[in-house]
């Protein structure tokens, strides 16, 4: 900051002190996907008009793994440049010490939020971030193609594999040579951890690390699920899926080149958008499961707003967090971005239901979503996740089968844990 700017803000501050409101320059950082950036800017403009604060957006790459590295750097350097961070649901245990406890600042509204969301952001009684929106993935499918070939919506992964194969081949025979059966997030990053834990868990293979911290990932059910996924590469899924993140998968599905897609809720609003070639021909359902005796699993995702301990404008930052998560803004975001809100009441809003039928439909899925083992593994979560996605990515790329790679993973996880997490 220049001397002049200091002087100016000092004068402005002194003038405003009398009225009790201090205009602050705030900075918020987020990793934008889909229409996040657009809607955030719109809501910030309103915030600026209502208060005297100004807010700058810093936008990060799409990959959550990349975002985390940068955030950790800023926070460890105790940088005051960023006031509000949009944090992934899994980060709270690792970054808790860098954020203020929001509990006293949201005591009056905290009961309106989805309890599981608040719980996921509470570390040793400290509310690290106020939930902004949730995520629970869906299976997107081409209703028109299923109807054309007389196929039911698949309930198991085996059915999905078979249906995808049939329709893909039939469509290609009709001249649509770019057609594929299934796209998902297969690049070696956090997104693959989400995808793969759904395959494993919905096949009865348990969790990467159980809630009590025990490790039992090296089991036949888990191996079976990952081996099935490996069989998709180069058959129903393009080989390039090994480097796909959310937006790559959406690109293929939305241009009409895939029968199925696993993706988060944000993709719904875009695939249903005015300029989308598939807007009238796709639908969503819950992800498939392994078969008899198993249930569908959806990884709990979501992004939440935390106020940095190193912020020089904490009061204003808290005000901003509360503003962005109020009823009106959550409702607007639900309608525009199709992200599940964190306020219980928004799910029952008739306007949301009318414009975004996905949202009320998804409440039970969100309520039962499967968390990643970030609470059990604490500061080692990133390494655990990287070890898991590496084992899966290796299997998908044909370097060894699942049983082999899971045995290595098992040893790696036990080494990481040591005597305790």
């Amino acid at each position: 900051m220049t001397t002049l700017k200091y002087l100016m803000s000092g004068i402005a501050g002194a003038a405003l002190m009398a009225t009790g409101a201090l205009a602050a320059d705030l900075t918020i950082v987020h990793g934008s996907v889909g229409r996040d950036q657009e809607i955030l800017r719109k809501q910030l403009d309103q915030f600026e008009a209502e208060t005297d604060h100004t807010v700058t957006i810093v936008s990060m790459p799409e990959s959550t793994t990349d975002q985390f590295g940068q955030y950790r750097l800023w926070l460890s350097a105790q940088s005051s440049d960023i006031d509000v961070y949009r944090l992934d649901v899994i980060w709270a245990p690792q970054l808790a010490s860098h954020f203020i406890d929001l509990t006293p600042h949201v005591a009056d509204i905290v009961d309106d939020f989805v309890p599981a969301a608040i719980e996921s952001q509470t570390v040793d009684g400290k509310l690290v971030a106020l939930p902004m929106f949730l995520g629970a993935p869906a299976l997107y499918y081409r209703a028109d193609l299923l109807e054309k070939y007389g196929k039911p919506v698949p309930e198991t992964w085996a059915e999905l594999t078979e249906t995808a194969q049939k329709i893909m081949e039939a469509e290609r025979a009709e001249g649509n040579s770019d057609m594929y059966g299934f796209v998902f997030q297969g690049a070696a990053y956090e997104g693959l951890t989400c995808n793969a834990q759904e395959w494993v868990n919905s096949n009865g293979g348990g969790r990467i690390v159980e809630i009590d911290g025990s490790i039992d990932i090296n089991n036949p059910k888990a191996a079976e699920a990952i081996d099935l996924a490996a069989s998709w590469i180069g058959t129903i899924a393009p080989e390039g899926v090994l480097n796909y993140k959310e937006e790559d998968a959406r690109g293929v599905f939305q241009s009409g080149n895939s029968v199925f897609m696993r993706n988060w809720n944000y993709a719904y609003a875009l695939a249903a958008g005015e300029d989308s070639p598939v807007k009238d021909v796709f639908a969503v359902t819950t992800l498939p499961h392994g078969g008899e005796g198993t249930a569908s699993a959806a990884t709990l995702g979501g992004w939440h707003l935390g106020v940095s301990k190193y912020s020089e404008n904490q009061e204003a930052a808290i005000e901003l967090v509360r503003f962005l998560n109020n009823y009106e803004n959550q409702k607007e975001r639900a309608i525009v971005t199709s992200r599940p809100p964190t306020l219980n009441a928004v799910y029952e809003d008739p306007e949301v239901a009318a414009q975004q039928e996905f949202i009320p439909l998804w409440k039970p899925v969100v309520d039962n979503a499967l968390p990643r083992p970030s609470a059990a593994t604490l500061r080692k979560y990133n390494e655990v996740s990287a070890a898991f996605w590496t084992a899966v990515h290796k299997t998908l790329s044909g370097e060894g089968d699942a049983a082999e790679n899971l045995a290595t993973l098992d040893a790696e996880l036990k080494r990481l844990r040591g005597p305790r997490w």
Partner: protein
Amino acid sequence: MPETSRKSRLSRNRTRSAWLFLAPMLVTLFIVAAWPLGRTIWFSFTDASLDLMADAKWVGIRNYLEYVDWGDGEGQYYGLLADARWWRSVWNTVRFAVISVAFETLFGLVIALVLNQQFRGRGLVRAAVLVPWAIPTIVSAKMWAWMMHDQFGILNDMFLRLGLISHPVAWTASPDTAMIAVLIVDIWKTTPFMALLILAGLQMVPQDIYEAARLDGVPAWRTFRKVTLPLIMPAILVAIVFRALDALRIFDIAYVLTPNTDATRTMSVYARENLFDYDQFAYGSAASTLLFLVIALITITFILATRMDLEGRNT
């Protein structure tokens, strides 16, 4: 007597002012090079984590090598030197450096020879050749990522039309082609740099030697082999060392272009991953320290093996 004493005072004075003039540079070098390097090496012998750097405690060589006895007579080695992933990254990096520098030198030499000729529009071509070098690496990596995309990429589209491939190739995703993709982008980007350095060497070759060779009727190929190449060799070797130093630190292209897997993980990517993504600052520092040693070792070996003339004795 008085004369020598005056002389030595003069020379003392000169030495003093030499140090005085050198001082700012030495201080700057210490601050930006020696101090960070020393700190990195120090952290590699501690248990530092990014959040608690001040509490770092000395733990000896545990980050490099440690034998953990499981209590039943059996045990296992841990630490960087026993980490297969680290050695895989070293191998990836060295292989990348050798292949990329070899191609860049070859292409750079060819381009430099062409640019050294007189032809119309030479200035324009010289400027145009530099374009890939001028584009920031992160931008060119992203640009190539789109060109190599398996579904929307122009590369697959062109090859399919030409009938070179029968189905789209996932250049950056498949472990078989990921390293090739990184090599293609790096060679495309850095060949101009090599061409520029070699061109500078070519322009130092006196024209009268060529004239003499032409008068003697020496064929062009032999002139190149016996006259041009030996004369520009010092320039080429220096260019190779510069490029190799750079190539051994490769981070951005591998990180942006390809998935973060064993197939393309380089030493720098490995170090960064431990420093910032994982809670392993000390372990990452150990990786950075070894990276420094590996590069130093390779460079020194290369300089000795080629008997490079660094002090200009023969010029």
